[in-house]
């Protein structure tokens, strides 16, 4: 029961932490700028390139908008557990959380879930905004399915992806326990790799083997495919396959990550680095 309380309190503290420095509206707008910018830039780059080559295809724009928005979503909340540890070591919140009865895992889950909610909203705004702006700039109809069913399916895909992203977050957090400097670096590198391997902007099949195979097994790739099925292609059977794969793969990944985090905690206690400040 105490774990649930810790998760809920950590969700709340995560929102306060994200928006407490300003008013909630300004805070939310600031958080929306990055995904909107990334979605628009990716679409415009495609438009400029394809127009020059005379091969512009509006369905490719939908493909890019969905991929870029949801890639930003994954990148935005997967690094939150890692951030919670590094800033928590600095402010000494993390050692205090660590010595509480349920220790730090429910705290990291809560912080990650808080960011999931914020990031889901900003991603949906980015999708809608990019769709209208792209249609206006490119002067063409961008295929996009907006029905109650497609929105439910999209939300289902976002939820099914939570275990995988949480797993990535917890794995990065395990690394951050050991990090003594540049703790922000690894999540940034991982986000870069995800852009290449999660089918955010192009199909992983264009990558040489075994890189394409690696991209194919990632639950994040399946998540983005499921989301595209929900709002671009509209195949419920393909959607079900991808979303199921994303969920099961994500749960497996989360299990491995939780094990790795427990191991890192134990090593952290051995080495005396749980309360060591990151410089």
């Amino acid at each position, binding site marked *: *029961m*105490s774990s649930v*309380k*810790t998760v*809920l*309190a*950590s969700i*709340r*503290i995560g929102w*306060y*932490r994200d928006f*407490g*420095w300003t008013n909630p509206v300004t805070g939310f707008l600031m958080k929306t700028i990055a995904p909107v910018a990334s979605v628009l830039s990716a679409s415009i780059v495609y438009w400029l390139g394809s127009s020059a080559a005379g091969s512009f295809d509006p369905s490719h724009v939908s493909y890019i908008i969905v991929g870029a928005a949801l890639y930003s979503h994954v990148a935005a909340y997967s690094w939150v557990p890692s951030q919670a540890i590094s800033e928590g070591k600095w*402010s*000494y*919140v993390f*050692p*205090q*959380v*660590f*010595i*509480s*009865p*349920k*220790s730090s895992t429910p*705290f990291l889950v809560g912080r990650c879930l808080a960011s999931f909610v914020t990031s889901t909203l900003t991603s949906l705004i980015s999708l809608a905004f990019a769709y209208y702006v792209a249609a206006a700039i490119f002067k063409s109809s961008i295929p996009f399915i907006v029905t109650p069913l497609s929105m439910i399916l999209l939300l289902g895909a976002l939820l099914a992806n939570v275990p995988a992203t949480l797993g990535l977050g917890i794995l990065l957090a395990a690394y951050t326990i050991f990090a003594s400097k540049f703790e922000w670096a690894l999540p940034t590198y991982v986000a870069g790799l995800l852009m290449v391997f999660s089918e955010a902007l192009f199909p992983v099949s264009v990558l040489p083997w075994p890189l394409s195979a690696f991209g194919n097994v990632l639950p994040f790739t399946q998540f983005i495919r499921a989301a595209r099925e929900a709002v671009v292609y509209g195949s419920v059977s393909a959607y079900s396959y991808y979303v199921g794969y994303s969920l099961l793969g994500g749960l497996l990944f989360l299990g491995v990550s939780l094990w790795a985090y427990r191991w890192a905690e134990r090593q952290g*206690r*051995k080495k*005396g680095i*749980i*309360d060591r400040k990151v410089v």
Partner: protein
Amino acid sequence: MLSHEPEVRVEVQNLRREFDSKERKVVALNGVSLKVREGEIFGVLGPNGAGKTTLIRILSTLLLPTSGVARVMGFDVASEPEKVRAVINMASGAERAGYDYISARGNLWFFSQLYGLPSEVAKARIKALSQLLGLDDYLDRKFYMLSTGYRQRVTIARAFINDPKIVFLDEPTIGLDVMTAMSIREFLIKEARENGRTIFLATHNMAEVDTICNRVAIIDRGRILTSDTPTNLKRSLGAPALVMEVSPLPVNLAFLGAVEGVKGFTTSVDEERGLARVQVVVESEECVRRILAGVPASGMRLVSSWRQQTTLEEVFVSLVGRGFVEREHEVGE
């Protein structure tokens, strides 16, 4: 006041902790053993680098010992950390744990939830602690807007938020003004006396230990040198310390090592007045006479001398032969 035999709440046996650095192995704790009981304010007194913080980190489950056993409420800190964590809390004076852009109340509420406190209980506890610590008017201010003293009061309140049986405090009044430090000490005494809480206090503030601790262990280089009540420790020295002001600088105090009955001494230099103040822990009055006779014989001039009421610093000097400051310099080197 307790109506029963106080239970042992912290028990440490032959505790050792080593750290591996690039150049060498550092032994932070070397065979530490102690017992602390219910309702006791137990001080661990020693210079910086003596091992106080390492001991608190182990007892609060942040760090594993290299060897030895440490039990809190009968639970082994190494193998049963979850059980230990349910009955303890800790605070450090050097760290102000809290989110800057969240109010003091919000921070305290968050930490209360880590212990699963029902919302109403948490609110009542925050209210009670803030009244005891004089925080009522500051609870809704953001953490970063509080002065150092009030942030430390919040930190202390946080350490008691879960109604812990044992609270570990590491230099809780460091850097605080006299009034804030005094009110925190009064709060700690009240918590131990009225609620039977065990307070484990690591500090290098001798006056603090003298004022609030029921018992004290003096630690140096990872070893407990002695442990008793502050009064008994001071009484054990016998004669009051001798303080002398001698000149010219630099002074040569080598002769003190040869005087029978000298247990140790500390020196501080007053450049402005061109003299050194030497505090000597002595065994007897005869020893004092020998020292005073030895000053001119060593080519120095005795500017003044007097006897000083024994403090815990003299106890430390008598055990180690050096004062806190000199010891910290040695450890730093």
